């Protein structure tokens, strides 16, 4: 059974409620009786060993998979039954970055921005993530860390209130890690909610409101 440890929160009504969640994958039970809730401005840190179900939890929260039992409530709706017009409210960054290798960094970011009717401009993000030098380079020619930065930039362009980040610090250097922590803080300050899985909870501890240990 998983446990959720609550830290400080703003006392607002929860917008994401997970109740008695049970997740199975390939017939194997991964999560059982998991419950936690998040209010605007809160970030949950999901921790656990390999195979404990961190990725499966995020996929279920995103609506990419259906739970075996239990209930997920995001603003009164179930993620996997969200109507298309509400799907832009959830941003998911998985292990795979979702970028097209045959497009340049700039082309990928512009696609993300127009596809999600994104907020903000591409240029400041490129500068913030130090991607100027590889802006017109094909993504297939980038290092794993640079690709992760571009994927994070896509996430930032999406006007989503719920961020679901699966190991966002993977392949990032110290500067990239700092940017993620800063963005999580900014997202929370804007009233956003985030669920972040990580193997490095100590690096993200400052951004977390609650810890969900699987």
């Amino acid at each position, binding site marked *: 059974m998983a446990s959720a440890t609550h830290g400080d929160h703003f006392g607002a009504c929860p917008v994401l409620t997970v109740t008695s969640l049970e997740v199975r994958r390939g017939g194997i039970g991964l999560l059982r009786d998991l419950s936690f809730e998040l209010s605007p401005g809160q970030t949950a840190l999901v921790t656990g060993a390999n195979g404990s179900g961190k990725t499966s939890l995020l996929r279920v929260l*995103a609506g990419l998979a259906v739970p075996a039992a239990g209930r997920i409530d995001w603003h009164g709706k179930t993620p996997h039954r969200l109507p*298309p017009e509400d799907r832009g409210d*959830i941003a*998911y960054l998985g292990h*795979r970055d*979702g970028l097209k290798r*045959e497009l340049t960094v700039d082309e990928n970011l512009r696609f993300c921005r127009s596809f999600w009717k994104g907020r903000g401009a591409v240029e400041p993000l490129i500068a913030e993530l130090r991607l100027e030098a590889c802006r017109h380079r094909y993504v297939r020619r980038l290092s794993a860390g640079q690709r992760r930065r571009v994927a994070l930039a896509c996430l930032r362009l999406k006007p989503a209130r719920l961020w679901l980040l699966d190991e966002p610090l993977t392949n990032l250097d110290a500067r990239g890690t700092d940017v993620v922590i800063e963005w999580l803080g900014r997202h929370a300050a804007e009233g956003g909610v985030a669920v972040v899985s990580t193997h490095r909870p100590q690096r993200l501890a400052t951004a977390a409101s609650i810890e969900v240990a699987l």
Partner: protein
Amino acid sequence: MLDVVLHILRRDLRLAFRRWSELATPLIFFVIIASLFPLAATPDEAQLRSIGAAVIWMSALLSSLLALDGLFRADSEDGSMEQLILAPAPLGLVVLAKIVAHWAVSGVPLLVLAPLVAMSFYLPLAALPELIAALALATPTLSVLAAVGAALTVSLRAGGTIIGLLILPLTGPVLIFGTRATELAALGESVAGPLYLLASLAVLAVSLGPLIAAAAVRTALE
């Protein structure tokens, strides 16, 4: 929602032209298969004319199989498909956009090449418009069937091989009506019947295929 479809269509077309070798391979394959038949059978004009329609349609069918596997696999492997499932448009519409892009880069070039190949089989020039019309109605059905096969096998490692086994039996009606239309056109007779039937198949495929492929993709990625 229409703008989401247009964004996907534009991106897929751009990607297809960046992967030009994948684009060209089925077309070269089409020409090679069609060119090998006279070597294996006979160079006799009358006999080539009698087998021309069947050769063109079989070549088109087999070459279209080559372009199938990449329809969803690349999106599945790089994580784009997860983002497309979360797109602010029904997944069926997203899949339809991808099918249209696939048809534009695999079906449309066939419409251009097929008359050239047909001439090498001594098909009369007057029959070429009907051949193009038949292919224009048949290739969308082939693209939809390709999408269903690709979606069903997206999570399988040897998906490319299995797609052929799944799809080829389903292409029977397209092959029959397409070949018949071409034969009738070569004889100077009306091709309305087979063209209507090809159009009906296209409407049925485009109406139901994207929904079936979307359900298969969602299930495969769960």
